[in-house]
């Protein structure tokens, strides 16, 4: 065998192995997707949306409390986390720029973005749940908001950075003060990107379970009071899936399916917004 043939053979072998490992990885991932969709669709029916949790064995049991709780928790956390993240990102991109303080905040925020979410839960337990003496929706909101800020901060910083500085200069030349330049020119230019970042941030915290386990805890019944423990789809899913009752496990799959569709939907929406922006 000549040297050239040998090299070609080695190349073929390696490429074959790469394709095989890609196939293996995709096989597992699609297996999980298939399990999720088939179990989810089978368990999904109208009851899931109109009834609250019930003891195992009851026909009329559903996930209403978890759906409502999830919306309240994620919605409230977003109301707190999004403005804070966007403002902090604005500072980094428009005021701090490459200063030492801004770089430090960027680094710390990046690290916080990957911090173990269960530790955030423990932290919130110590500062909110323990002093109050009981689990509460607010504690869950705090944990989710803390996780959300660094994500939004990062994308806002990056997206505002992409706005050409000539636009800012043009606005300054017209005599606009800096805050007006930021609000009316920079924000407008970066709208699509920042919006996508916010959507991805919401999608990210919507799938979190660990920080809610010992903050908002869980509740099998309808509750809209953030001062009380509150159900979420993720914690409900965890509790139902680890229970020995088959009908609870089925509800767990229904919750998994609804949540995944919600998160995938937001992700796809975010991508479409960016694509549309690029298309212009």
């Amino acid at each position, binding site marked *: 065998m000549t040297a050239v043939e040998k090299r070609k053979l080695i190349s073929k072998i390696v490429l074959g192995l790469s394709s095989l490992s890609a196939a293996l990885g995709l096989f597992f991932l699609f297996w999980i*997707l298939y399990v999720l969709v088939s179990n989810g669709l089978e368990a999904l029916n109208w009851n899931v949306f109109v009834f609250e949790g019930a003891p195992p064995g009851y026909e009329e049991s559903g996930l209403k409390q978890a759906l409502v709780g999830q919306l309240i928790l994620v919605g409230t956390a977003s109301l707190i986390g999004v403005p804070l993240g966007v403002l902090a990102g604005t*500072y980094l991109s428009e005021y701090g720029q490459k200063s030492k303080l801004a770089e430090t905040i960027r680094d*710390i925020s990046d690290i916080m973005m990957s911090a173990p979410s269960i530790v955030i839960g423990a932290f919130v337990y110590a*500062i909110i749940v323990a002093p109050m003496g009981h689990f509460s929706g607010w504690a869950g909101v705090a944990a989710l908001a803390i996780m959300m*800020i660094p994500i939004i901060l990062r994308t806002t910083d990056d997206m505002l950075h992409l706005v050409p500085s000539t636009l800012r200069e043009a606005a300054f030349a017209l005599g606009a003060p800096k805050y007006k330049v930021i609000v009316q020119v920079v924000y407008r230019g970066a709208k699509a990107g920042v919006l996508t970042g916010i959507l991805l941030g919401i999608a990210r915290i919507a799938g979190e379970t*660990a920080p809610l386990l010992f903050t908002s805890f869980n509740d099998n019944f309808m509750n809209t009071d953030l001062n009380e423990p509150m159900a979420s789809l*993720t914690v409900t899913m965890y509790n139902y899936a680890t229970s020995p009752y088959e009908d609870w496990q089925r509800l767990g799959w229904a919750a998994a399916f609804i949540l995944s569709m919600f998160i*995938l939907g937001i992700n796809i929406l975010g991508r479409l917004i960016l694509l549309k922006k690029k298309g212009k």
Partner: protein
Amino acid sequence: MSTVLDKLFANGTRLTALLVLLIVAWIFTVLFQESMLSIQSFGFEFLTNEKWAPNLEKFGGYAAIMGSIMSTFLAMVLSVPVAIGVAIFLSEIAPQRLKSPVGISIELLAAIPSVIYGMWGLFYFVPIVRDIVGGVGISMLAAGIVLAIMILPFTAAVTRDAMNTTPDILKESAYALGGTKWDVIRDIVIPYAKAGIIGSLILALGRAVGETMAVTFVMGNVHKFSLDITQPSTSIPVTLANEFTEADGDLYFSSLFELALILMVMSFIVIAVSKFYFLRRTRRAS
């Protein structure tokens, strides 16, 4: 009027940015304070003592700490070769019409909540492990594999992104010299993207260390570390998820907080190494 607003806006945004630093410092302070009791009671022995006996008020974190290291190690060993294979496939082999659908579906899979990977592991994967290696199936092995699958989309996506930074002109030059695809990957793409690939993989490792839900279902929470990975075991996140709401007694809580602190420090170091050592060069460039 507008100067007042200007100052208000500038200072307001600065305050929110500083809030990030404050929260991180606050997290470390609170975790440290809460674990004080355990640190005073057990000292450094906490790290080497395996005995975790809530009824006797004796706590040692050895099993959980080693379990975290072991499960992360298993996950990385299993996931990295596959991820590199997927990345090579996506960046160098796949035809154009496959590239973007496969790439996008991998990115979307990274968005699926980890609790779902855990559920799949418990209902579909644990029985297979049980049939093949015997025992209950709930084990370190099952946890390592489920964790590997969970971080696969992330590791594959970041490795591909790192490989894609190689300029086409470099690759084309190598092809023009008669290089095969593997020659180009080995001698051009991998050397060029090395720092990015290693940094991204360490970032994935940081995620695996702190991941809770994918492993909680399948690990078993048994405070006994064993090199026999077919045995049930525990890790720091698994211990926290299982015991935090049931803990009673100050010392019990304090020991759990010490585990949380150790986990936070571990992931902080891993992520900092990845960011500052390997990824520094590429930041802001994209």
